[in-house]
């Protein structure tokens, strides 16, 4: 019971409600407390990651009765700690970046309060071991994100936020429906307990229905292709730090993470569901990239590219599931899942960085239209260099991290005999390179027509970008076997060994 993991939720939540009170006295309170708090969480989560600790926590101290869990459980294992690390690191850098950027807008206190609320919700989603509690935290984080998308209160922001909310609400209904169906069938809400009950039941039609509902609900939050309609609007209209959070962290923490957690640790997955997930991933990868080519708005391009990159992540997990469900070699599944996890970490870093760069460009030039920009590399060297790094990384050019994670996924696809998927992954990677070269050329190189006198962005903004570009290069070390064993492999093990998760919760 010595575990302190509820602090991941309590601290940001308390900060979110302290800001409106103390923030009235001085504007700098919100600006400084948010990065400080997130830095503390950052250090704490990295310590937990390196010590590879597994912790279970019962809120309110409701001990299990006859081995049946009755309380709300918070579960920390190697997979969730990885996501917690991403949330805190990107959250810290983004909040630091906002120091200058957000003084553009009025009511900065509200921004920081909502930001902390979003972080608290995401941490809760990741830690929760209880499916309804997970839904509550999910709603906390997405409601905060609805408000943050509409933060600029212009025409576009409001319209995007309304669309996002309508679709997001429908997703929440689907999730709530599937939760009630699961409760109906199993009479429990704890993920590990549900999993134990489901292993003995054989009502496959019911299970498939629930699984499809869950995929569509969380798929909408994760912006997989048939459910992607909100993402370009919401990402392009939100203030840039928020887009970086949405794209870098939110769609992973509340979308991909939950799908993966539920399908690996709760359901006994079947071959069909695994194939559905792989096909959805492939579709997202291709269509996202094709839609991105023709965009002239920087942030819309990045948003579509997010869809495509989420596709890669889903493919990795999907191939792992297919191999495991067919009883194939575990080593291939391990490779695929490790690649997907690696790409998840990488995508958070480079997509966050790209949105921050887009924000820097917008901060100085007040436009996102690539037709009007050009030749900014001379005046904005830091922004230009870091966005070049991120672009090369996302399109999979060697020493950068994106290359290695994509390579691992493609190798796994070939080994699992998904030759078509592997081929398409390579093609999409080339398309990605093409549209990022276009982005680079139109924005940072070429002729500078309109913006001869722009300056480099202030320190707070450039600092975050530099740290992220260093991370882009530095994360490549995760392919070195000894480091991979420390960070990625425990997470993969928790996913493929269902019993490990169940034992951690039930026998606590």
């Amino acid at each position, binding site marked *: 019971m010595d575990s302190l993991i509820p602090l991941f939720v309590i601290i940001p939540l308390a900060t979110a409600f302290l800001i409106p009170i103390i923030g009235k006295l001085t504007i700098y309170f919100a600006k400084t407390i948010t990065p400080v708090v997130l830095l503390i969480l950052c250090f704490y989560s990295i310590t937990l990651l390196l010590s590879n600790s597994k912790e279970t926590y019962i809120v309110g101290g409701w001990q299990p009765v006859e081995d049946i869990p009755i309380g709300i459980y918070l579960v920390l294992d190697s997979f969730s700690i990885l996501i917690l690390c991403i949330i805190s690191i990107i959250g810290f850098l983004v909040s630091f970046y906002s120091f200058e950027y957000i003084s553009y807008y009025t009511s900065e206190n509200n921004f920081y309060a909502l930001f902390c609320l979003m972080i608290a919700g995401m941490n809760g989603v990741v830690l929760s071991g209880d499916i309804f509690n997970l839904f509550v935290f999910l*709603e906390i984080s997405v409601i905060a994100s609805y408000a943050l998308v509409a933060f600029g209160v212009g025409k576009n922001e409001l319209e995007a936020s309304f669309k996002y909310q*309508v679709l997001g609400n429908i997703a929440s209904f689907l999730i709530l429906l599937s939760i*009630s169906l699961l409760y109906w069938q199993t009479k429990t809400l704890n993920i590990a307990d549900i999993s134990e009950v489901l292993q003995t039941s054989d009502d496959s039609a019911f299970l498939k229905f629930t699984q499809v509902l869950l995929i569509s609900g969380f798929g909408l939050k994760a912006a997989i292709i048939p459910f992607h309609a909100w993402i370009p609007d919401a990402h392009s209209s939100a203030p840039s730090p928020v887009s970086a959070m949405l794209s870098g962290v939110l769609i992973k923490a509340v979308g991909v993470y939950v799908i993966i957690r539920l399908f690996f640790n709760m359901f006994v997955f079947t071959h069909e569901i695994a194939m559905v997930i792989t096909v959805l991933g492939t579709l997202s990868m291709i269509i996202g990239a094709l839609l991105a080519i023709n965009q002239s708005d920087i942030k819309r391009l990045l948003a579509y590219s997010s869809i495509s990159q989420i596709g890669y992540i889903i493919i990795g997990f999907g191939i792992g599931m297919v191999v495991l469900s067919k009883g194939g070699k575990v080593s291939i599944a391990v490779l695929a899942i490790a690649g997907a996890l690696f790409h998840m970490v990488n995508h958070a870093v480079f997509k966050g960085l790209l949105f921050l760069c887009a924000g820097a460009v917008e901060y100085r030039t007040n436009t996102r239209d690539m037709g009007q920009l050009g030749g900014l590399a001379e005046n904005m060297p830091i922004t230009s260099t870091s966005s070049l790094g991120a672009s090369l990384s996302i399109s999979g050019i060697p020493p950068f991290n994106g290359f290695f994670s994509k390579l691992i996924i493609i190798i796994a696809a070939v080994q699992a005999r998904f030759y078509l998927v592997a081929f398409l992954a390579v093609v999409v990677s080339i398309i990605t390179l093409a549209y990022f070269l276009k982005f680079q050329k139109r924005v940072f190189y070429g002729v500078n027509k309109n913006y001869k006198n722009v300056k480099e962005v202030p320190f707070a903004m450039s600092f975050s970008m530099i740290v992220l570009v260093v991370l882009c290069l530095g994360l490549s070390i995760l392919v070195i076997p000894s480091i991979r064993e420390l960070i990625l492999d425990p997470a993969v093990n928790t996913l493929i060994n269902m019993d490990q998760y169940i034992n951690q919760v039930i026998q606590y």
Partner: protein
Amino acid sequence: MTVNILCFILFLVGLYGLITRRNLVKIVISLSIMEFSLFIFLELVGYIDGGIAPIITGQDANAVYVDPLPQAMILTAIVIGLATTAMLMAIAIRLYRKYKTFDIREIKNLKG
């Protein structure tokens, strides 16, 4: 079972409204209808024939109680629903201020 089907029909009523109405406020109302049909369904999950309210005092050993957990879940879900509805209404009013209309056919800045 009849009630379950009725609540499915209520869900479809909400969905129909969501798809066919063009007024922002009516869309919000349709979403609320869908949401409440789900709440009723969740309530039915915990219902037991002849069950009484689960305030356990220990006086009647043979009493059958309804399942209290779905009720707690609905209460939480209602709070969440309140927050989302308020958020949607706030955005709808703001949109009205910008466009002077609630008609979604007029509000189409974002494309592509």
